[in-house]
């Protein structure tokens, strides 16, 4: 015979449809999002990893000042590599973007056609898909540069540009103002922009691991310097255009699991509290059943069945929805940031297990342990309704001077303490999400504003110093320096020379990234600190990111060599444009052995027009320094909107379920209050005001906790995943006001529902017996 108690389930669900439906929807959404994310993510990771072989991605690239001749190529290839021409030109287009022209590649870094076709005749162009999307370009559109028009015939993903970094030293890629493209040979030749002699290399024997790859890269660089004047050298493991997307794919995996498990845990506790209340309500029935011979385990199974069925159903349907729909939504988030090649959906057993088995296990463990504790009492205790903790039964003393309604409210809070505790946890969780969703745009806004404020010159010109200048020595170096210095003089009265030099962070830092050293001239008009000979100031961004303090010694290493330098920090300079170090120009030139008169760039508040573009490697202005915040806005803007909606939904759902329980638990008392002559408004004051106070207080008190939690998350994200730095500064006051307002708005809706529910409690409820 089937257990007749099972027939309660459908009636229980139908009788409390609102609760079960909201819990189901909440669980369904989080499982489907998590499943969709994991499926999309793992499929894309698999496609990304396979792309190295599929598209024959280079082991690295270098560029030279002059085109390599046959003998040079032969000598280089004798170092154990095969090199391929991969020349490009950066062309400025009328729609405000720089588009990098490449000829069609047939050997390395193959092109993935995403839509349309590749250019076949003159005047045709295929541009990176991501950029087309951001710039609103469609196949068939015409784009122009300097009077030359091109027809967009296809969108592509270049396998070595999954993230659109214009320069490998950039702190962030920029798919809005930069793109790569494929043009026909004739269109390539026609352009008169500077031709960059970039060469890709593939090792004859692939390195077995990362250590070997680094050693091979360093050996190759030593050999290359002997053969040509390098302007760049980027082994694959250092190439952000190739690696950034790969590192980002899967980086949110743990965060997604945490989100899933926290949500399931909260739901499990909500269920447990609901069941606990039901057990209290049905104590006499349970007592009778136990007295009739039902075992504790039979009752535990009975009360646990619905939460488990809801979880299982949400997991199955959530996974189905995740595979069929949410996978595309999540993939679109990545495709909205990166220029990834195509991928195929792979069945993901791990995702299925982790989004099904673990939520069920969590639900089972939490509910079992709470039910076991709740049902452990002997039948007689249930029959006597004597199953609450004795301490809880004692009334705590309240001063009679406290107005009656307030005392009553305090007693309601005390009576429903477990509900309210759960509500507080839920509010903290929802507010962490909400604060994250709100602080991100505020942080980017603050960053941009702050950047504009502490930008010491409107433009910073970094000159194109040949790499060989740093590595060669003696007379040759001096000659090169003299030639270079002559070509980069300007008559612009605003211009002020500075030295620049790049080092890299060493193993002491969480991430290997470039640090720009500024050598500042005495009495600088732009940098308003007078540096003594031994001063080493780090930028505020560098100090913030790695928690550097004055007096601390840091070790940095050469970009293209093994030499290491120790610096003792003597000050912090307020500058967030990039991670940088400021020194006296003369001292810095001596430190890096650059020669007393060396300089590498100009600060200027007006444009410098009298230096040949080929000698200018980078122009840093507010726009270019802002690319990190611009790209983050593009990458996360939509996502943050979704986070805000989800967090308010979680907030409202939790309040709805838990406050509903408070009302249901007190239905008889509310009914009695009505019989006594209390008006609905007064009853609302008695039973809704306590919830309002808890919600408001929890919301306000959770704010500092949320602030600190997000700070930890932010620091972790910025340190481990981003080059450069966006400090944790945002408009706390506005964001907090918004959180409280969102919370109150969500709560107002719930309170209206609860008021309606109270108004519908009949007066005869109090007169009914327990059946």
């Amino acid at each position, binding site marked *: 015979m089937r257990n*007749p108690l099972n027939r309660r389930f459908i009636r229980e669900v139908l009788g409390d449809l609102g609760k079960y439906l909201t819990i189901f929807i909440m669980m369904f959404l989080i499982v489907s999002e998590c499943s969709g994310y994991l499926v999309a993510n793992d499929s894309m990771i698999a496609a990304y990893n396979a792309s190295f072989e599929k598209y024959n991605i280079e082991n690295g690239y270098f560029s030279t000042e002059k085109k390599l001749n046959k003998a040079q190529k032969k000598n280089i290839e004798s170092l154990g590599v095969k090199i391929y021409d991969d020349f490009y030109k950066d062309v400025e287009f009328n729609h405000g973007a720089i588009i990098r022209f490449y000829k069609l590649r047939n050997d390395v870094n193959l092109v993935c056609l995403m839509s349309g076709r590749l250019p076949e005749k003159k005047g045709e162009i295929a541009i990176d898909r991501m950029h087309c999307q951001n710039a609103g370009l469609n196949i068939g559109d015409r784009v122009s540069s300097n009077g030359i028009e091109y027809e967009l015939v296809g969108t592509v993903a270049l396998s070595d540009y999954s993230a659109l970094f214009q320069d490998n030293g950039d702190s962030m890629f920029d798919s809005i103002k930069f793109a790569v493209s494929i043009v026909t040979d004739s269109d390539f030749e026609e352009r008169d922009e500077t031709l960059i002699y970039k060469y890709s290399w593939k090792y004859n024997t692939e390195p077995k691991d990362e250590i070997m790859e680094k050693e091979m890269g360093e050996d190759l660089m030593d050999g290359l310097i002997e053969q040509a004047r390098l302007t760049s050298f980027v082994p694959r493991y250092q190439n952000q255009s190739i690696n950034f997307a790969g590192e980002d794919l899967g980086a949110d995996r743990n965060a997604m699991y945490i989100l899933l498990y926290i949500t399931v845990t909260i739901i499990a506790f909500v269920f447990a509290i609901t069941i606990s209340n039901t057990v209290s309500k049905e104590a006499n029935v349970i007592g009778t059943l136990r*007295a*009739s011979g039902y*075992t504790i385990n039979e009752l535990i199974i009975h009360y646990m069945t619905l939460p488990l069925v809801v979880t299982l159903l949400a997991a199955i349907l959530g996974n189905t929805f995740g595979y069929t729909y949410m996978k595309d939504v999540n993939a679109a988030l990545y495709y909205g940031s990166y220029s990834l090649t195509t991928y195929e959906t792979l069945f993901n057993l791990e995702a299925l297990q982790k989004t099904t088995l673990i939520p069920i296990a969590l639900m089972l463990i939490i509910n079992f342990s709470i039910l076991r504790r709740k049902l452990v009492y*002997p039948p007689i205790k249930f029959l006597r309704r004597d199953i609450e903790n004795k301490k809880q039964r004692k009334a705590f003393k309240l001063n009679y001077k406290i107005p009656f309604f307030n005392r009553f409210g305090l007693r309601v809070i005390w009576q429903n303490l477990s509900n309210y505790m759960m509500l507080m946890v839920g509010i903290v969780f929802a507010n962490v999400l909400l604060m994250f969703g709100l602080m991100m745009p505020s942080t980017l806004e603050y960053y941009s504003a702050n950047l504009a404020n502490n930008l010491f010159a409107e433009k910073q010109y970094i000159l194109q110093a040949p790499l060989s200048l740093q590595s060669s020595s003696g007379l040759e170096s001096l000659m090169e320096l003299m030639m270079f210095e002559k070509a980069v003089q300007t008559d612009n009265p605003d211009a002020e020379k500075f030295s620049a030099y790049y080092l890299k962070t060493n193993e002491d830092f969480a991430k290997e990234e470039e640090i720009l050293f500024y050598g500042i001239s005495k009495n600088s008009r732009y940098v308003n600190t007078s540096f003594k000979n031994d001063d080493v100031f780090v930028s505020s961004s560098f100090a913030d990111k790695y928690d550097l303090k004055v007096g601390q010694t840091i070790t940095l290493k050469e970009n293209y060599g093994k030499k290491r330098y120790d610096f003792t920090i003597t000050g912090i300079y307020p500058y967030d444009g990039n991670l940088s170090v400021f020194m006296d120009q003369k001292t810095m030139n001596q430190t890096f052995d650059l020669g007393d008169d060396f300089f590498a760039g100009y600060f200027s508040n007006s444009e410098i027009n009298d230096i040949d573009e080929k000698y200018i490697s980078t122009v840093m202005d507010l726009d270019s320094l802002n690319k990190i915040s611009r790209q983050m806005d593009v990458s996360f803007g939509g996502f943050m909107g979704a986070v805000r909606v989800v967090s308010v939904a979680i907030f409202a759902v939790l309040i709805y379920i838990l406050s509903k329980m408070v009302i249901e638990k007190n239905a008889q008392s509310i009914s009695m209050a009505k019989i006594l002559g209390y008006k609905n408004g007064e009853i609302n004051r008695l039973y809704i005001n306590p919830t309002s106070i808890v919600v408001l207080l929890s919301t306000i008190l959770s704010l500092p906790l949320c602030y600190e939690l997000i700070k930890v998350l932010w620091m972790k994200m910025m340190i481990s995943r981003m080059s450069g730095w966006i400090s944790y500064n945002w408009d706390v006051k506005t964001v907090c006001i918004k959180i409280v307002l969102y919370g109150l708005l969500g709560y107002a809706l719930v309170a209206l529902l609860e008021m309606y529910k109270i108004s519908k409690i009949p007066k005869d409820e109090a007169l009914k017996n*327990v059946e």
Partner: protein
Amino acid sequence: MAFLQLKQIFKSFGEGDSQFQVLKGIDLEVEKGEFCVLLGPSGSGKSTLLNIIGGIDKADSGDIIVNGHSMESMNEKALTQYRREHLGYIFQMYNLIPNLTVRENIEVGAYLSKHPLNVDDLIDVLGLTDHKDKLPNQLSGGQQQRTAIGRAVVKNPDILLCDEPTGALDYSTSKEILKLIETVNNKYGSSIVMVTHNDAIKDMADKVVKLRDGQIRDAAINKNKLTASQLEW
């Protein structure tokens, strides 16, 4: 040997100065199929004694032997099994499951037995055929109590324990319930131990036990047994 034997049952509540001795050495025997009524004023210990017989409360000392098996050595699991196999319980407040129908509430009892009575036949005997698909809140107090009796009886228990089964009912409904219990006793041969305040009910019992201050003041065989219909109060 009697089917149910109680030997020197002691039970107290509270601790220290506030300790209160509820049962002070109760000895009692109930034969198979016997109808035993426990009478006594409030606080005399009759409900406590019933709960101890039912294995839902524990005596401080003494032993209960059911069909030759001592309950003293039984752990919680064994006690549950004992209740499952041998006992039926009826309470003053009917304690029905609110979202199960009359028939389903009776099935809750049937589920526990390897050899339950036929549910529909029992519903007929209980006079609930017209109400079998109703929920408890659609029933009168008497109908609810009849359902509770059905739930207790359906598993064909050896002993039916009734704690003030008519305590919440009016005169005529109480008589209906008593008739039903009488029918169960006669038809299914269950031993019945009933706790009641109602002195009149003693006339339908085989054995009448009067309790006061935790002790049996009188235990007598009723030689002039009346039927439930004949009772008046």
